[in-house]
């Protein structure tokens, strides 16, 4: 069954606003907002795409950063589990690159946690 129309989103719509855009406005290099790229995998794992936001992390220390946020095993990704207590999907997205998909209402919180953890790596 497809979802009713009021649960479907089109990031190309002029009305669409990323829930992360404010929180990641001044994010350092390697941390970016990929909410607009939400796809079938994330929707299947976590719920309607309209409710998801995504952060991409990239860099040589990305695994250390992730380990400070989640106890998911890297050899078992993509997987759903707690990221800083929030149910999220963690998916590899290339060399030293991962994406975290999570319920959009945690955007400000999770962005804050990610930026803080990144700061702790310096």
């Amino acid at each position: 069954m497809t979802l009713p129309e009021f649960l479907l989103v089109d990031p190309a719509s002029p009305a669409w606003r990323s829930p992360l855009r404010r929180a990641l406005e001044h994010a350092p290099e390697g941390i970016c907002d990929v909410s607009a790229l939400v796809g079938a995998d994330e929707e299947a794992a976590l719920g309607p795409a309209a409710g998801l936001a995504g952060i991409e992390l990239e860099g040589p220390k990305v695994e250390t950063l992730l380990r400070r946020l989640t106890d998911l095993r890297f050899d078992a990704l993509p997987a759903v589990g707690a990221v800083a207590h929030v149910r999220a999907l963690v998916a590899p997205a290339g060399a030293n690159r991962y994406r975290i998909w999570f319920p959009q209402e945690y955007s400000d919180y999770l962005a804050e946690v990610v930026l803080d953890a990144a700061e702790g790596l310096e």
Partner: protein
Amino acid sequence: MRLPAQPGELIDRSRGLTFFFDNATIEALEGDTIASALFAAGRRVFSRSFKYHRPRGLYCCSGACPNCLMEVDGVPNVRVCVEPARQDAVVRAQNVLPTLEWDLLSITDKVGGPFTPVGFYYRTMIRPRWAWPLYERFLRNVAGLGRVNKHARRSRRFDTEHRHAEVLVIGGGHSGIEAARQAAAEGRHVVLVHDGRPPGDEPFETIAPARAIGIYEGGLVPVDAGNILYRFRAERIVVATGTIEQPVVFPGNDLVGVMLPDGVRRLVRDFALKPGDRAVVVSVREPEVVADLEAAGVEVAEVVDLRERAPTRLEARGRRGRVQSLTVDDRRIGCDLLVVDGGSQPAYSLLAQAGARIEYEPETGTFVPTDLPPHVEAVGSVTGAGRAQAKPLASYEGEGKCFVCICEDVTTKDMKRAVAEGFDSIELAKRYTTVTMGPCQGRLCHLPSIRFYAQATATSEAAIGTTTARPPWSPVSLGLLAGRGHEPARRTALHHRHKEVGAKMMWTGAWRRPYAYGDPAAEVRAVHDAVGVIDVSTLGKLLVRGPDAVVFLERLYPNRFADLKLGRIRYAVLGTDAGRIMDDGTVARIGDDEFYVTTTSTGAEAVFEWFEWWNAVWQLDVEIVDATGALAAVNVAGPRARDLLGRLTDLDVSADAFTYLDAKQAPVAGVPALLLRIGFVGELGYEIHVPSPYGESLWDAILEEGADLGVKPFGLEPQRILRLEKMHVIVGQDTDSESNPLEAGMPWIVKFDKDDFVGKWSLEQVLERGFREQLVGFEMENGTIPPEGGQIVVDGRPGGRVTSSRWSEEVGGAIGLAWVPTELAEEGTTLQIRVDGRLERASVRLSPFYDPDGSNLRS
């Protein structure tokens, strides 16, 4: 001051550094610990004891004992014997007044003895009662360890990191390294945790210096690495924690200059320091330390070998806290260094935490681990293997204070007293005397205390057994355990819009919501007179669909849904098996087999789980989608809500086409929306649900299009007033875990003619026994607002309670909801409510204060 170069010494003589200690500048070498540098500089007193302020010197030099705790760069209770000396570090002695060498508080040692047995403060300092806070303050000042600098908040950063390994080896001694190499050679992913310097190049990862602080259920091993807490999960845990050298209990056994062999060895071998001039060695095993002493040029005056004979008297004496002689039987031997070796005790705590059994081994007089749980292994001396030693007496005769526990200053006298008072089980005695509860966590006092109890109660060590081993095995800073304080907060898609206009935010569960944007009363007025808009995105939103959707909802709710027409909404109350109110909300039929269910904001997760649970139990063909976060929702309410909505959508919103309790899907402000015409706040109103990413643009459009209609955002507080005027119940505020829908004034919800539903039997029992109390409205006679939770007084006794109360401008009085005995639940009955100790009168109302016939709602 240093000895000639020692083989394998850790210091680099070519590189010096300096740090500050109290008011002095201390010179150190690269590789020194703070303690070794202080020792090299001639310092012998390193701390003052917990209770008696006795001077204490280096003892174990391996991070086990409490004797070298100092404040380093503002961090209290640092074991400086294992803390590397750093350039410009600021080191301070703690728990002294004013200095280590000259501590006024040591008066407690002179006079305190007889007056300060274990727990004395709870017995002698309780009268007069009011003075306890003064006593407590005094005691806190004179006893204990370092001080936490309250102004140093966030001065240190603590992170938590989750790690996985195939093999986790705890302990980097020979056996630990060997085990790690072997596992690595087998191609396993190995991590070694070592609480000393990192070993050289090895084929595995090492975390050092770091301490495993426990083995928890599921094989979780937290590792304290200073500023990072690693949470390890390993398929196999190898414990190679080795043994701990034990003290011998005799009078004066805490004097400065009394040391364990390992402490001596480290001073000599690692730091090229001469530990004393003239030494006496007391040992229960081969005194290997003699070679080290001789190599360092220390004169060994005598070796008292306890394997050969047990002296009747063994007592150390000193001057100004420093050892000067040891008396063996009647012989007095002068010395400034007394090396005592009570044998080695396997450091089994982590194994015991993991589930190993601990057994007494009479030959060595120690406890050894057996019956290891699967996935946990012990290697090396922690197994107890390969030790040849005698068992010392539980305590030796003499006159001075004889310490069993140097962390907490517990003497044999204290322990005897505890036994005499009836604390004869080791677990009770531990809690009473606090032996083993100090910074060493029992490393140096657990075994001696068990021996002493065995002697004092004339039983055996095997019969007494050990106390339960619990984490943390090593002291750990609370900041490290707390980590970064991740507290998830949920914010709606409109959160920043609220903040931009200065809304006062509040927590509701994990959500942040606007309390009000300004004056709540003005926001209430806007809803009554024009139109208001409130962010209700936090409502739980579930999509229930599938061929069995109707059956599913019929069984879950006391309501009926089979007759709910497509595009219509019904208010629904969810009950527990016991018929109690669990949650409420609306159920809209948006397709033949598709329902849109809203729940309360705080109940959303519980309701979703409840649905999933019953779906699993009944195995119906139903799919449940949690769309709570996926949808933003606003409620546009007020007499002008229709005009406003008409400007935003092509949908026919006329009173005839879009009636009360209709649900329609149509684009609003250019985005797909679900519209629900409901009226929680008592005016004509529409809930508009749209995908969260569109929420802000909808909100902006509403405020823009409604500007000339007087649209005003309103917060939770005005909503609470508005719904109270309508006597609409808030689950959890007006109901509790005992409330049922019948007594809560909603009997029309419950359809007893349905086959079955969750809680039906229980509700039938309520009908049978009759109502005891009912939820009613009330209005105060003199306008005082009673406190929520306030008491309803019936015949001078508590008979009910106020659940909600507010001032309503619309009503022109103080109104509320209350549970009252059924006989008072009549329109106009007078209630007595306790307000600030007085009884105020109120009269019962059974129909809404505002718009009682609902004509506004339906307009």
